């Protein structure tokens, strides 16, 4: 059987693994952003439940992916070096503190703090994957972090306008996060493009994530600016804000889905020297 030297898309982690990054990222981002934005009343409850549900669905996706789900408890055994163990260790803290803050709102900042740790672990999980150049590039960490926060902010704005909530600064914060995601994505891509020059197929695969962080960031960013700068009637501004939120979230989800399932070419094989045969 011939494998050849060319890298190929890893098949160990599929849509289920992507589901963890999509659900976990958006859920923690929403928990963090809605806490910072000061969501109140029913909206706070709805957003809290949604964020916990997203994180929970993400974890269920991982559980569905592992080969031995009945011994999933072993995931906690190696927090010394494994970011997956660390993510697993933080997950119950997020879920418990998040659920508790449904009843005791004063606990929500603590839940948000755990959510930050969870999101950071997710970013580091990818960075530690040495076999996948597009994941191990260090700039993946700020990119995944910014993506999660932007998705969370997007989800907040998908719901907040219908409850008549959402301050100007929270609106601008969405814009800032979208800009950060775009910049982090561009930086990540620039670095990858330089290192993958000799592996055009790998780079083409990475190109497929671009709509996620380029259009998925710049289009909603333009909408943020329009709604901020142009005086619009509430009947128009409200759906525009929700649409902006939806696009911000969808862009992030698309990026992560493509990153895991399409743009994760492995290292391949390389020979720095060829054998010198015959002659002596």
């Amino acid at each position: 059987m011939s494998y050849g030297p060319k890298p190929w898309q890893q098949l160990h982690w599929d849509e289920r693994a992507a589901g963890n990054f999509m659900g976990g990222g958006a859920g923690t981002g929403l928990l963090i952003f809605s806490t910072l934005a000061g969501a109140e009343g029913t909206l706070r409850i709805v957003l809290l439940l949604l964020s916990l549900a997203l994180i929970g669905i993400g974890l269920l996706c991982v559980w569905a992916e592992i080969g031995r789900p009945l011994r999933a408890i072993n995931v906690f055994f190696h927090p010394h070096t494994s970011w997956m163990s660390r993510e697993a260790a933080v997950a119950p803290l997020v879920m418990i503190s998040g659920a508790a803050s449904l009843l005791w709102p004063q606990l929500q900042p603590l839940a948000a703090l755990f959510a930050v740790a969870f999101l950071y672990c997710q970013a580091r999980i990818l960075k530690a994957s040495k076999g996948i150049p597009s994941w191990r590039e260090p700039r993946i960490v700020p990119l995944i972090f910014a993506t999660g926060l932007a998705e969370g902010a997007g989800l907040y704005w998908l719901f907040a306008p219908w409850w008549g909530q959402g301050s100007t600064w929270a609106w601008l914060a969405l814009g800032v996060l979208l800009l950060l995601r775009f910049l982090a994505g561009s930086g990540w891509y620039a670095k990858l493009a330089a290192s993958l020059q000799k592996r055009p197929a790998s780079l083409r695969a990475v190109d497929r994530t671009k709509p996620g962080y380029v259009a998925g960031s710049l289009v909603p960013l333009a909408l943020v600016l329009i709604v901020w700068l142009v005086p619009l009637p509430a009947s128009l501004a409200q759906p525009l804000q929700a649409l902006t939120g939806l696009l911000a979230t969808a862009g992030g989800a698309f990026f992560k889905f493509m990153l895991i399932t399409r743009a994760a070419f492995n290292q391949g094989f390389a020979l720095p020297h060829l054998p010198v045969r015959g002659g002596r």
Partner: protein
Amino acid sequence: MTRWTMVADLRRCVGCQTCTASCKHANATPPGVQWRRVLDMEVGEFPNVQRVFVPTGCQHCDDPPCMEVCPSTATKKRPDGIVTIDYDLCIGCAYCAVACPYQARYKTEKPTFAYGKMSEHEQARFDEERIGVATKCTFCVDRIDYGLENGLTPGVDPAATPACVNSCLAQALAFGDIEDPDSNVSQLLAENKHFRMHEELGTKPNFYYLWDAKDGKDDEENSR
């Protein structure tokens, strides 16, 4: 301190895949799983094309990224350098598989057999423990341990040597203790130019590739 090392002489390998077959026989791996595989690589551009056969598999790295990421501590490293997997601990998350830069790890989701139905031979060798978990080359650790217990020298005595090395018809594969300056692998490395795969990643593999004699003149065309 012992550090088991494998050496593959790229000048000698003829791509016969006997090592692959031998490994499959020794370790009863299912179809599609090749703990020892031989890459058939075509490098260069016409008309300067060269075909190279590259034996590969787990490199038993000194700094194995698979062990670092493993959340269950199933992947461990023995003092003699062999990277092992505890099938009873592994949860089959495949994190190790994406962390390995050598594509050395496999996860078999369900039992598969060469001809669909389980043959008598496959039935005798089937190991339920290996389903849904990560598997990879073990350097035939059971043979090494058996040999050491019985006063044999791994890499020299066939009963204590990995199956792939025993079977190599071109003697392209060698196995031994790199910490012993008199061992076969130490001698080979001393006499030949060598490299390790993806050395820039800092994994420090214990798998070396020979490509030219030390006294051979530097050949720019063969350095890439």
